[in-house]
Protein backbone atom coordinates (compact mmCIF):
# COMPACT_ATOMS: atom_id res chain seq x y z
CA UNK A 1 0.00 0.00 0.00
CA UNK A 2 1.36 3.34 -1.00
CA UNK A 3 2.04 5.46 2.03
CA UNK A 4 3.19 8.35 -0.06
CA UNK A 5 2.19 11.99 0.04
CA UNK A 6 -0.91 13.37 1.70
CA UNK A 7 -2.07 13.10 5.30
CA UNK A 8 -0.38 10.79 7.78
CA UNK A 9 -1.88 7.42 8.66
CA UNK A 10 -4.18 7.51 11.66
CA UNK A 11 -4.22 3.76 11.97
CA UNK A 12 -2.48 1.10 9.92
CA UNK A 13 -2.96 -2.66 9.97
CA UNK A 14 0.06 -4.50 8.67
CA UNK A 15 0.01 -8.19 7.76
CA UNK A 16 -2.69 -8.92 10.30
CA UNK A 17 -3.90 -12.47 10.78
CA UNK A 18 -6.85 -13.51 12.92
CA UNK A 19 -8.05 -16.99 13.71
CA UNK A 20 -11.11 -18.15 15.59
CA UNK A 21 -10.22 -21.70 16.56
CA UNK A 22 -9.55 -23.50 13.30
CA UNK A 23 -11.21 -20.79 11.28
CA UNK A 24 -8.88 -18.36 9.54
CA UNK A 25 -10.86 -15.11 9.40
CA UNK A 26 -8.20 -12.70 8.21
CA UNK A 27 -4.94 -13.52 6.46
CA UNK A 28 -2.15 -11.05 5.83
CA UNK A 29 -4.59 -8.17 5.96
CA UNK A 30 -3.25 -4.70 5.34
CA UNK A 31 -5.16 -1.47 5.65
CA UNK A 32 -4.34 2.14 6.21
CA UNK A 33 -6.74 4.90 7.20
CA UNK A 34 -5.28 8.36 6.77
CA UNK A 35 -6.30 11.36 8.76
CA UNK A 36 -9.66 12.77 7.67
CA UNK A 37 -10.28 9.96 5.21
CA UNK A 38 -13.38 7.81 4.82
CA UNK A 39 -12.34 4.26 3.96
CA UNK A 40 -15.02 1.76 3.03
CA UNK A 41 -14.42 -1.94 3.59
CA UNK A 42 -16.46 -3.84 1.05
CA UNK A 43 -16.81 -7.57 0.80
CA UNK A 44 -19.18 -10.54 0.92
CA UNK A 45 -20.66 -11.45 4.27
CA UNK A 46 -18.35 -13.53 6.44
CA UNK A 47 -15.22 -12.05 4.88
CA UNK A 48 -13.99 -10.64 8.17
CA UNK A 49 -15.03 -7.00 7.71
CA UNK A 50 -16.41 -6.78 11.20
CA UNK A 51 -13.35 -8.55 12.56
CA UNK A 52 -11.20 -5.76 11.14
CA UNK A 53 -13.26 -3.21 13.08
CA UNK A 54 -13.06 -5.29 16.26
CA UNK A 55 -9.29 -5.43 15.91
CA UNK A 56 -9.05 -1.68 15.42
CA UNK A 57 -11.43 -1.08 18.35
CA UNK A 58 -9.23 -3.23 20.56
CA UNK A 59 -11.99 -5.78 21.15
CA UNK A 60 -9.81 -8.52 19.69
CA UNK A 61 -6.09 -8.99 19.25
CA UNK A 62 -4.41 -10.00 16.01
CA UNK A 63 -2.74 -13.40 16.00
CA UNK A 64 -0.01 -12.12 13.72
CA UNK A 65 0.94 -8.73 12.30
CA UNK A 66 0.52 -5.38 13.98
CA UNK A 67 -1.70 -2.38 14.32
CA UNK A 68 0.11 0.95 14.37
CA UNK A 69 -1.44 4.22 15.49
CA UNK A 70 -0.54 7.68 14.30
CA UNK A 71 0.16 10.47 16.79
CA UNK A 72 -3.28 12.05 16.27
CA UNK A 73 -4.95 8.79 17.30
CA UNK A 74 -2.87 8.16 20.38
CA UNK A 75 -3.66 11.65 21.64
CA UNK A 76 -7.43 11.15 21.23
CA UNK A 77 -9.49 8.78 23.33
CA UNK A 78 -11.00 5.49 22.23
CA UNK A 79 -12.65 5.37 18.77
CA UNK A 80 -16.35 6.02 18.33
CA UNK A 81 -18.22 2.88 17.28
CA UNK A 82 -21.53 2.44 15.50
CA UNK A 83 -22.84 -1.11 15.21
CA UNK A 84 -25.30 -2.55 12.74
CA UNK A 85 -28.03 -2.28 15.36
CA UNK A 86 -28.40 0.99 17.21
CA UNK A 87 -27.62 -0.93 20.45
CA UNK A 88 -29.15 1.72 22.67
CA UNK A 89 -30.01 1.20 26.31
CA UNK A 90 -33.81 0.83 26.14
CA UNK A 91 -34.20 1.92 29.76
CA UNK A 92 -32.42 5.24 29.23
CA UNK A 93 -33.46 8.43 27.46
CA UNK A 94 -31.81 9.60 24.27
CA UNK A 95 -29.79 12.09 26.32
CA UNK A 96 -28.53 9.42 28.72
CA UNK A 97 -27.69 7.09 25.84
CA UNK A 98 -25.62 9.71 24.08
CA UNK A 99 -23.96 10.69 27.34
CA UNK A 100 -22.85 7.11 28.13
CA UNK A 101 -19.26 7.35 26.83
CA UNK A 102 -18.71 10.55 28.82
CA UNK A 103 -20.24 8.96 31.90
CA UNK A 104 -17.85 6.03 31.57
CA UNK A 105 -15.01 8.53 31.43
CA UNK A 106 -16.19 9.87 34.78
CA UNK A 107 -17.56 13.17 33.47
CA UNK A 108 -20.42 14.60 35.51
CA UNK A 109 -23.79 15.18 33.89
CA UNK A 110 -23.52 18.96 34.15
CA UNK A 111 -20.10 19.04 32.52
CA UNK A 112 -21.24 16.67 29.78
CA UNK A 113 -24.22 18.82 28.79
CA UNK A 114 -22.58 20.93 26.02
CA UNK A 115 -20.99 17.91 24.31
CA UNK A 116 -24.25 15.92 24.45
CA UNK A 117 -26.25 18.87 23.12
CA UNK A 118 -23.81 19.34 20.28
CA UNK A 119 -23.77 15.66 19.34
CA UNK A 120 -27.57 15.56 19.34
CA UNK A 121 -27.74 18.73 17.26
CA UNK A 122 -25.34 17.27 14.71
CA UNK A 123 -27.75 14.40 14.03
CA UNK A 124 -30.82 16.65 14.18
CA UNK A 125 -32.31 15.15 17.35
CA UNK A 126 -32.06 18.03 19.81
CA UNK A 127 -35.83 18.01 20.25
CA UNK A 128 -35.94 14.33 21.22
CA UNK A 129 -33.40 14.34 24.06
CA UNK A 130 -35.99 13.15 26.59
CA UNK A 131 -37.51 10.44 24.41
CA UNK A 132 -36.93 6.74 25.01
CA UNK A 133 -35.53 4.62 22.17
CA UNK A 134 -38.80 2.75 21.68
CA UNK A 135 -40.51 6.04 20.86
CA UNK A 136 -38.18 6.64 17.90
CA UNK A 137 -38.11 5.26 14.36
CA UNK A 138 -35.31 2.97 13.22
CA UNK A 139 -33.55 5.81 11.42
CA UNK A 140 -33.77 8.06 14.48
CA UNK A 141 -32.35 5.33 16.72
CA UNK A 142 -29.41 5.02 14.37
CA UNK A 143 -28.91 8.79 14.59
CA UNK A 144 -28.80 8.50 18.38
CA UNK A 145 -26.21 5.76 18.00
CA UNK A 146 -24.13 8.03 15.76
CA UNK A 147 -24.47 10.91 18.23
CA UNK A 148 -23.22 8.60 20.98
CA UNK A 149 -20.19 7.73 18.85
CA UNK A 150 -19.49 11.42 18.19
CA UNK A 151 -19.94 12.71 21.72
CA UNK A 152 -16.33 12.13 22.78
CA UNK A 153 -15.06 13.83 19.61
CA UNK A 154 -13.04 10.75 18.60
CA UNK A 155 -10.32 10.99 15.97
CA UNK A 156 -11.58 7.72 14.50
CA UNK A 157 -15.11 6.54 13.82
CA UNK A 158 -15.72 2.82 13.20
CA UNK A 159 -19.01 1.97 11.54
CA UNK A 160 -20.10 -1.63 11.05
CA UNK A 161 -22.82 -1.75 8.36
CA UNK A 162 -24.76 0.87 10.31
CA UNK A 163 -27.46 1.44 7.71
CA UNK A 164 -27.85 -2.11 6.41
CA UNK A 165 -31.07 -2.74 8.33
CA UNK A 166 -32.75 0.51 7.25
CA UNK A 167 -35.02 1.13 4.29
CA UNK A 168 -33.54 2.69 1.16
CA UNK A 169 -34.98 6.19 1.71
CA UNK A 170 -33.74 6.41 5.29
CA UNK A 171 -30.42 4.99 4.25
CA UNK A 172 -29.91 7.65 1.56
CA UNK A 173 -30.75 10.38 4.02
CA UNK A 174 -28.36 9.01 6.65
CA UNK A 175 -25.65 8.72 3.99
CA UNK A 176 -26.10 12.42 3.24
CA UNK A 177 -26.11 13.25 6.94
CA UNK A 178 -22.99 11.23 7.61
CA UNK A 179 -21.09 13.14 4.94
CA UNK A 180 -22.35 16.43 6.37
CA UNK A 181 -21.28 15.45 9.89
CA UNK A 182 -17.91 14.40 8.61
CA UNK A 183 -17.46 17.68 6.73
CA UNK A 184 -18.12 19.57 9.97
CA UNK A 185 -16.14 17.34 12.31
CA UNK A 186 -13.39 16.02 10.10
CA UNK A 187 -13.09 12.61 11.76
CA UNK A 188 -11.44 9.67 10.07
CA UNK A 189 -14.02 6.99 9.33
CA UNK A 190 -13.67 3.27 8.61
CA UNK A 191 -17.00 2.18 7.22
CA UNK A 192 -17.93 -1.45 6.68
CA UNK A 193 -20.62 -2.17 4.13
CA UNK A 194 -21.75 -4.78 1.64
CA UNK A 195 -23.43 -2.23 -0.58
CA UNK A 196 -21.44 -1.13 -3.62
CA UNK A 197 -23.55 2.01 -4.03
CA UNK A 198 -23.15 3.05 -0.44
CA UNK A 199 -19.39 2.50 -0.58
CA UNK A 200 -18.98 4.57 -3.75
CA UNK A 201 -21.21 7.36 -2.48
CA UNK A 202 -19.48 7.73 0.88
CA UNK A 203 -15.88 6.70 0.53
CA UNK A 204 -12.68 8.40 -0.50
CA UNK A 205 -11.17 4.97 -0.87
CA UNK A 206 -12.75 1.53 -1.10
CA UNK A 207 -10.96 -1.61 -0.03
CA UNK A 208 -12.51 -4.66 -1.64
CA UNK A 209 -11.98 -7.80 0.43
CA UNK A 210 -11.88 -11.45 -0.59
CA UNK A 211 -14.15 -14.05 1.00
CA UNK A 212 -12.75 -15.86 4.01
CA UNK A 213 -9.94 -15.69 4.80
CA UNK A 214 -10.32 -11.95 4.30
CA UNK A 215 -7.57 -10.15 2.44
CA UNK A 216 -7.42 -6.69 0.93
CA UNK A 217 -8.05 -7.65 -2.70
CA UNK A 218 -8.11 -4.29 -4.43
CA UNK A 219 -8.13 -0.65 -3.51
CA UNK A 220 -10.20 1.82 -5.49
CA UNK A 221 -10.04 5.57 -4.95
CA UNK A 222 -13.21 7.59 -5.43
CA UNK A 223 -11.95 11.01 -6.40
CA UNK A 224 -15.32 12.77 -6.61
CA UNK A 225 -15.17 16.01 -4.66
CA UNK A 226 -17.17 16.76 -1.54
CA UNK A 227 -19.82 17.81 -0.81
CA UNK A 228 -21.43 14.92 -2.61
CA UNK A 229 -25.15 15.30 -3.16
CA UNK A 230 -28.00 13.43 -4.75
CA UNK A 231 -26.68 14.72 -8.07
CA UNK A 232 -23.55 12.62 -7.58
CA UNK A 233 -25.72 9.50 -7.33
CA UNK A 234 -27.12 10.30 -10.80
CA UNK A 235 -23.77 11.13 -12.40
CA UNK A 236 -21.90 9.01 -14.99
CA UNK A 237 -18.84 9.15 -12.73
CA UNK A 238 -20.83 7.45 -9.96
CA UNK A 239 -22.08 4.76 -12.33
CA UNK A 240 -18.58 4.16 -13.67
CA UNK A 241 -17.13 3.76 -10.18
CA UNK A 242 -19.94 1.40 -9.19
CA UNK A 243 -19.19 -0.74 -12.24
CA UNK A 244 -15.51 -0.78 -11.40
CA UNK A 245 -16.14 -1.73 -7.77
CA UNK A 246 -18.67 -4.40 -8.74
CA UNK A 247 -16.17 -5.90 -11.15
CA UNK A 248 -13.48 -5.90 -8.46
CA UNK A 249 -15.90 -7.56 -6.03
CA UNK A 250 -16.74 -10.23 -8.60
CA UNK A 251 -13.05 -10.81 -9.25
CA UNK A 252 -12.41 -11.09 -5.51
CA UNK A 253 -15.09 -13.76 -5.22
CA UNK A 254 -13.70 -15.65 -8.19
CA UNK A 255 -10.14 -15.54 -7.02
CA UNK A 256 -11.24 -17.04 -3.75
CA UNK A 257 -13.12 -19.71 -5.65
CA UNK A 258 -9.80 -20.82 -7.14
CA UNK A 259 -8.23 -20.86 -3.70
CA UNK A 260 -10.92 -23.09 -2.32
Amino acid at each position, binding site marked *: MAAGAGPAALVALDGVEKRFGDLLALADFTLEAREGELVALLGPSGCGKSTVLRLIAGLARPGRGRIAWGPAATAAGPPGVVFQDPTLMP*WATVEANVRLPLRLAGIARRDARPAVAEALASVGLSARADAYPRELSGGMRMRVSIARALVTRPALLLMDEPFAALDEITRFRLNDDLLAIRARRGATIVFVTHSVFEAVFLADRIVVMTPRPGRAFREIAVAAPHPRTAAFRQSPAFAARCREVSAALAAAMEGAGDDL
Partner: protein
Amino acid sequence: MISRGEAAGDGEAARRQRRDRWLLPAAVLALALVAWQALVSALAIPHYILPSPGRVAQALAAGFPALALSWWMTLKVALMALALAAASGAGLAVLLTRRRWLEMSFLPWMVVLQVTPIIAIAPLIFIYIDGHLARVLFCAWLVAFFPVLANTVLGLRSADEHLGDLMTIHRARGWQRLWLLELPSALPHFLAGVRIAGGLSLVGAVVAEFAMGSGGAAAGLAFRILEASYRLETARMFAALVLIVLTGVAIHLAVGLLAHLLLRRWHASALARES
Protein backbone atom coordinates in the same frame (compact mmCIF):
# COMPACT_ATOMS: atom_id res chain seq x y z
CA MET B 1 -61.77 10.11 8.19
CA ILE B 2 -61.63 6.36 7.91
CA SER B 3 -58.43 6.12 9.88
CA ARG B 4 -59.82 8.33 12.62
CA GLY B 5 -62.92 6.17 12.86
CA GLU B 6 -60.75 3.10 13.11
CA ALA B 7 -58.60 4.68 15.78
CA ALA B 8 -61.68 5.48 17.84
CA GLY B 9 -62.86 1.92 17.31
CA ASP B 10 -59.52 0.61 18.54
CA GLY B 11 -59.76 2.73 21.68
CA GLU B 12 -63.24 1.41 22.31
CA ALA B 13 -62.06 -2.18 21.81
CA ALA B 14 -59.13 -1.64 24.16
CA ARG B 15 -61.40 -0.19 26.82
CA ARG B 16 -63.78 -3.10 26.48
CA GLN B 17 -60.94 -5.58 26.74
CA ARG B 18 -59.59 -3.87 29.86
CA ARG B 19 -63.04 -3.98 31.45
CA ASP B 20 -63.55 -7.61 30.47
CA ARG B 21 -60.28 -8.56 32.09
CA TRP B 22 -61.88 -7.79 35.47
CA LEU B 23 -65.51 -8.39 34.68
CA LEU B 24 -65.27 -11.93 33.31
CA PRO B 25 -63.34 -13.49 36.23
CA ALA B 26 -65.67 -11.67 38.64
CA ALA B 27 -68.67 -13.13 36.84
CA VAL B 28 -67.16 -16.62 37.12
CA LEU B 29 -66.66 -16.08 40.85
CA ALA B 30 -70.25 -14.91 41.34
CA LEU B 31 -71.62 -17.84 39.37
CA ALA B 32 -69.50 -20.30 41.33
CA LEU B 33 -70.70 -18.86 44.65
CA VAL B 34 -74.35 -19.03 43.55
CA ALA B 35 -73.90 -22.62 42.33
CA TRP B 36 -72.13 -23.54 45.56
CA GLN B 37 -74.90 -22.03 47.68
CA ALA B 38 -77.57 -23.75 45.56
CA LEU B 39 -75.77 -27.09 45.73
CA VAL B 40 -75.43 -26.97 49.51
CA SER B 41 -79.11 -26.15 50.07
CA ALA B 42 -80.44 -28.48 47.37
CA LEU B 43 -78.53 -31.53 48.60
CA ALA B 44 -78.78 -30.50 52.26
CA ILE B 45 -75.04 -31.04 52.76
CA PRO B 46 -74.10 -30.82 56.45
CA HIS B 47 -72.11 -27.65 57.18
CA TYR B 48 -69.22 -29.63 58.74
CA ILE B 49 -68.75 -31.36 55.35
CA LEU B 50 -69.27 -28.35 53.08
CA PRO B 51 -70.44 -25.06 54.54
CA SER B 52 -72.35 -22.66 52.31
CA PRO B 53 -70.62 -19.44 51.18
CA GLY B 54 -72.91 -17.53 53.55
CA ARG B 55 -71.77 -19.64 56.48
CA VAL B 56 -68.11 -19.11 55.52
CA ALA B 57 -68.74 -15.37 55.48
CA GLN B 58 -70.35 -15.63 58.91
CA ALA B 59 -67.39 -17.60 60.27
CA LEU B 60 -65.05 -15.01 58.82
CA ALA B 61 -66.96 -12.18 60.48
CA ALA B 62 -67.40 -13.96 63.80
CA GLY B 63 -63.81 -15.18 64.05
CA PHE B 64 -62.30 -12.06 62.59
CA PRO B 65 -60.34 -10.76 65.62
CA ALA B 66 -58.41 -14.04 66.02
CA LEU B 67 -58.19 -14.67 62.28
CA ALA B 68 -56.95 -11.15 61.59
CA LEU B 69 -54.17 -11.58 64.12
CA SER B 70 -53.12 -14.87 62.50
CA TRP B 71 -53.48 -13.31 59.08
CA TRP B 72 -51.11 -10.53 60.10
CA MET B 73 -48.63 -13.16 61.32
CA THR B 74 -48.73 -15.10 58.06
CA LEU B 75 -48.58 -11.95 55.97
CA LYS B 76 -45.62 -10.71 57.99
CA VAL B 77 -43.70 -13.96 57.45
CA ALA B 78 -44.54 -14.04 53.74
CA LEU B 79 -43.52 -10.42 53.16
CA MET B 80 -40.33 -10.72 55.18
CA ALA B 81 -39.44 -13.92 53.34
CA LEU B 82 -40.16 -12.21 50.02
CA ALA B 83 -38.01 -9.20 50.90
CA LEU B 84 -35.19 -11.48 52.05
CA ALA B 85 -35.55 -13.64 48.94
CA ALA B 86 -35.46 -10.62 46.63
CA ALA B 87 -32.44 -9.09 48.36
CA SER B 88 -30.44 -12.30 48.81
CA GLY B 89 -31.39 -13.71 45.41
CA ALA B 90 -30.31 -10.56 43.59
CA GLY B 91 -27.21 -10.12 45.75
CA LEU B 92 -26.10 -13.69 45.29
CA ALA B 93 -26.78 -13.50 41.55
CA VAL B 94 -24.53 -10.45 41.26
CA LEU B 95 -21.85 -12.15 43.33
CA LEU B 96 -21.92 -15.43 41.39
CA THR B 97 -21.84 -13.77 37.98
CA ARG B 98 -18.70 -11.77 38.81
CA ARG B 99 -16.54 -14.81 38.19
CA ARG B 100 -17.31 -17.70 35.89
CA TRP B 101 -15.80 -20.23 38.30
CA LEU B 102 -17.93 -18.97 41.19
CA GLU B 103 -21.07 -19.51 39.17
CA MET B 104 -19.97 -22.96 38.05
CA SER B 105 -19.00 -23.93 41.59
CA PHE B 106 -22.10 -22.84 43.43
CA LEU B 107 -25.10 -22.54 41.11
CA PRO B 108 -25.60 -26.34 40.82
CA TRP B 109 -25.79 -26.55 44.61
CA MET B 110 -28.43 -23.86 44.66
CA VAL B 111 -30.42 -26.09 42.32
CA VAL B 112 -30.01 -29.01 44.72
CA LEU B 113 -31.25 -26.80 47.53
CA GLN B 114 -34.22 -25.83 45.40
CA VAL B 115 -35.30 -29.35 44.42
CA THR B 116 -35.15 -30.63 48.00
CA PRO B 117 -38.75 -30.58 49.30
CA ILE B 118 -38.95 -28.06 52.10
CA ILE B 119 -41.23 -30.34 54.09
CA ALA B 120 -38.43 -32.93 54.18
CA ILE B 121 -35.89 -30.60 55.74
CA ALA B 122 -38.32 -28.89 58.10
CA PRO B 123 -37.54 -31.27 61.00
CA LEU B 124 -33.83 -30.48 60.59
CA ILE B 125 -34.52 -26.76 60.54
CA PHE B 126 -36.46 -27.34 63.76
CA ILE B 127 -33.30 -28.75 65.35
CA TYR B 128 -30.84 -26.16 64.09
CA ILE B 129 -32.78 -22.94 64.26
CA ASP B 130 -34.15 -21.49 67.44
CA GLY B 131 -37.31 -19.47 67.68
CA HIS B 132 -40.56 -19.92 65.82
CA LEU B 133 -40.37 -16.83 63.64
CA ALA B 134 -36.80 -17.58 62.56
CA ARG B 135 -37.74 -21.16 61.63
CA VAL B 136 -40.82 -20.26 59.62
CA LEU B 137 -39.04 -17.38 57.98
CA PHE B 138 -36.10 -19.57 57.00
CA CYS B 139 -38.43 -22.12 55.41
CA ALA B 140 -40.38 -19.53 53.46
CA TRP B 141 -37.17 -17.83 52.33
CA LEU B 142 -35.65 -21.11 51.19
CA VAL B 143 -38.65 -21.79 48.97
CA ALA B 144 -38.85 -18.28 47.58
CA PHE B 145 -35.29 -17.26 46.93
CA PHE B 146 -34.29 -19.59 44.10
CA PRO B 147 -36.52 -18.13 41.37
CA VAL B 148 -35.10 -14.70 42.12
CA LEU B 149 -31.55 -16.04 41.98
CA ALA B 150 -32.04 -18.04 38.79
CA ASN B 151 -33.89 -15.27 36.97
CA THR B 152 -31.45 -12.57 38.00
CA VAL B 153 -28.46 -14.67 36.91
CA LEU B 154 -30.16 -15.11 33.55
CA GLY B 155 -30.89 -11.40 33.35
CA LEU B 156 -27.35 -10.37 34.22
CA ARG B 157 -26.07 -12.69 31.52
CA SER B 158 -28.50 -11.41 28.90
CA ALA B 159 -27.07 -7.90 28.69
CA ASP B 160 -26.63 -6.73 25.10
CA GLU B 161 -23.31 -7.95 23.74
CA HIS B 162 -22.60 -4.85 21.69
CA LEU B 163 -23.33 -2.56 24.63
CA GLY B 164 -20.81 -4.70 26.49
CA ASP B 165 -18.33 -4.10 23.66
CA LEU B 166 -18.99 -0.39 23.91
CA MET B 167 -18.22 -0.55 27.63
CA THR B 168 -14.97 -2.39 26.87
CA ILE B 169 -13.94 0.18 24.26
CA HIS B 170 -14.56 2.98 26.74
CA ARG B 171 -12.69 1.10 29.46
CA ALA B 172 -15.65 0.82 31.80
CA ARG B 173 -14.85 -0.38 35.29
CA GLY B 174 -16.51 -3.48 36.68
CA TRP B 175 -18.96 -1.53 38.80
CA GLN B 176 -19.86 0.76 35.87
CA ARG B 177 -20.64 -2.25 33.71
CA LEU B 178 -22.74 -3.72 36.52
CA TRP B 179 -24.61 -0.53 37.37
CA LEU B 180 -25.13 0.91 33.88
CA LEU B 181 -25.60 -2.24 31.85
CA GLU B 182 -26.05 -5.52 33.68
CA LEU B 183 -28.44 -4.47 36.45
CA PRO B 184 -30.85 -2.58 34.16
CA SER B 185 -30.77 -5.52 31.72
CA ALA B 186 -31.53 -7.90 34.58
CA LEU B 187 -34.36 -5.83 36.06
CA PRO B 188 -37.24 -7.38 34.04
CA HIS B 189 -35.92 -10.88 34.78
CA PHE B 190 -35.43 -10.05 38.46
CA LEU B 191 -39.00 -8.75 38.71
CA ALA B 192 -40.35 -11.88 37.02
CA GLY B 193 -38.44 -13.87 39.67
CA VAL B 194 -39.88 -11.73 42.45
CA ARG B 195 -43.36 -12.32 41.09
CA ILE B 196 -42.87 -16.09 41.34
CA ALA B 197 -41.24 -15.68 44.75
CA GLY B 198 -44.26 -13.69 45.95
CA GLY B 199 -46.51 -16.70 45.58
CA LEU B 200 -43.88 -19.10 46.88
CA SER B 201 -43.16 -17.05 49.99
CA LEU B 202 -46.80 -17.39 51.04
CA VAL B 203 -46.78 -21.11 50.24
CA GLY B 204 -43.56 -21.40 52.24
CA ALA B 205 -45.02 -19.49 55.20
CA VAL B 206 -48.09 -21.75 55.32
CA VAL B 207 -46.23 -25.03 54.75
CA ALA B 208 -43.62 -24.10 57.34
CA GLU B 209 -46.28 -23.59 59.94
CA PHE B 210 -47.92 -26.91 59.12
CA ALA B 211 -44.53 -28.58 59.50
CA MET B 212 -43.25 -26.72 62.54
CA GLY B 213 -46.41 -26.17 64.50
CA SER B 214 -47.50 -22.84 65.84
CA GLY B 215 -45.55 -20.48 67.99
CA GLY B 216 -48.29 -20.16 70.60
CA ALA B 217 -49.49 -16.59 70.56
CA ALA B 218 -47.80 -16.08 67.19
CA ALA B 219 -50.04 -18.57 65.39
CA GLY B 220 -50.54 -17.98 61.68
CA LEU B 221 -53.40 -18.88 59.37
CA ALA B 222 -52.09 -22.40 58.80
CA PHE B 223 -52.43 -23.09 62.48
CA ARG B 224 -56.00 -21.67 62.43
CA ILE B 225 -56.87 -24.16 59.69
CA LEU B 226 -55.45 -27.09 61.65
CA GLU B 227 -57.13 -25.89 64.83
CA ALA B 228 -60.49 -25.51 63.10
CA SER B 229 -60.17 -28.93 61.52
CA TYR B 230 -59.70 -30.56 64.96
CA ARG B 231 -62.94 -28.91 66.04
CA LEU B 232 -64.74 -29.78 62.81
CA GLU B 233 -65.32 -26.05 62.23
CA THR B 234 -65.18 -26.44 58.49
CA ALA B 235 -66.57 -22.96 57.81
CA ARG B 236 -63.69 -21.48 59.81
CA MET B 237 -61.22 -23.55 57.78
CA PHE B 238 -62.68 -22.02 54.65
CA ALA B 239 -62.59 -18.56 56.21
CA ALA B 240 -58.84 -18.90 56.91
CA LEU B 241 -58.35 -20.28 53.40
CA VAL B 242 -60.13 -17.27 51.91
CA LEU B 243 -57.75 -14.97 53.76
CA ILE B 244 -54.73 -16.90 52.49
CA VAL B 245 -55.99 -16.77 48.92
CA LEU B 246 -56.72 -13.03 49.18
CA THR B 247 -53.24 -12.48 50.57
CA GLY B 248 -51.69 -14.39 47.69
CA VAL B 249 -53.66 -12.40 45.14
CA ALA B 250 -52.76 -9.14 46.87
CA ILE B 251 -49.02 -9.98 46.86
CA HIS B 252 -49.23 -10.98 43.21
CA LEU B 253 -50.96 -7.75 42.25
CA ALA B 254 -48.61 -5.61 44.33
CA VAL B 255 -45.51 -7.14 42.74
CA GLY B 256 -47.11 -6.81 39.31
CA LEU B 257 -47.82 -3.14 39.95
CA LEU B 258 -44.26 -2.58 41.11
CA ALA B 259 -42.93 -4.25 37.95
CA HIS B 260 -45.23 -2.17 35.81
CA LEU B 261 -44.13 1.07 37.44
CA LEU B 262 -40.44 0.22 37.08
CA LEU B 263 -40.61 -1.00 33.48
CA ARG B 264 -43.40 1.01 31.87
CA ARG B 265 -41.10 3.44 30.10
CA TRP B 266 -39.11 0.89 28.20
CA HIS B 267 -39.84 -2.81 28.55
CA ALA B 268 -42.06 -4.76 26.17
CA SER B 269 -43.77 -6.66 28.99
CA ALA B 270 -45.01 -3.43 30.56
CA LEU B 271 -45.79 -1.76 27.24
CA ALA B 272 -48.09 -4.57 26.21
CA ARG B 273 -50.36 -3.79 29.18
CA GLU B 274 -50.86 -0.23 28.06
CA SER B 275 -51.93 -0.98 24.52
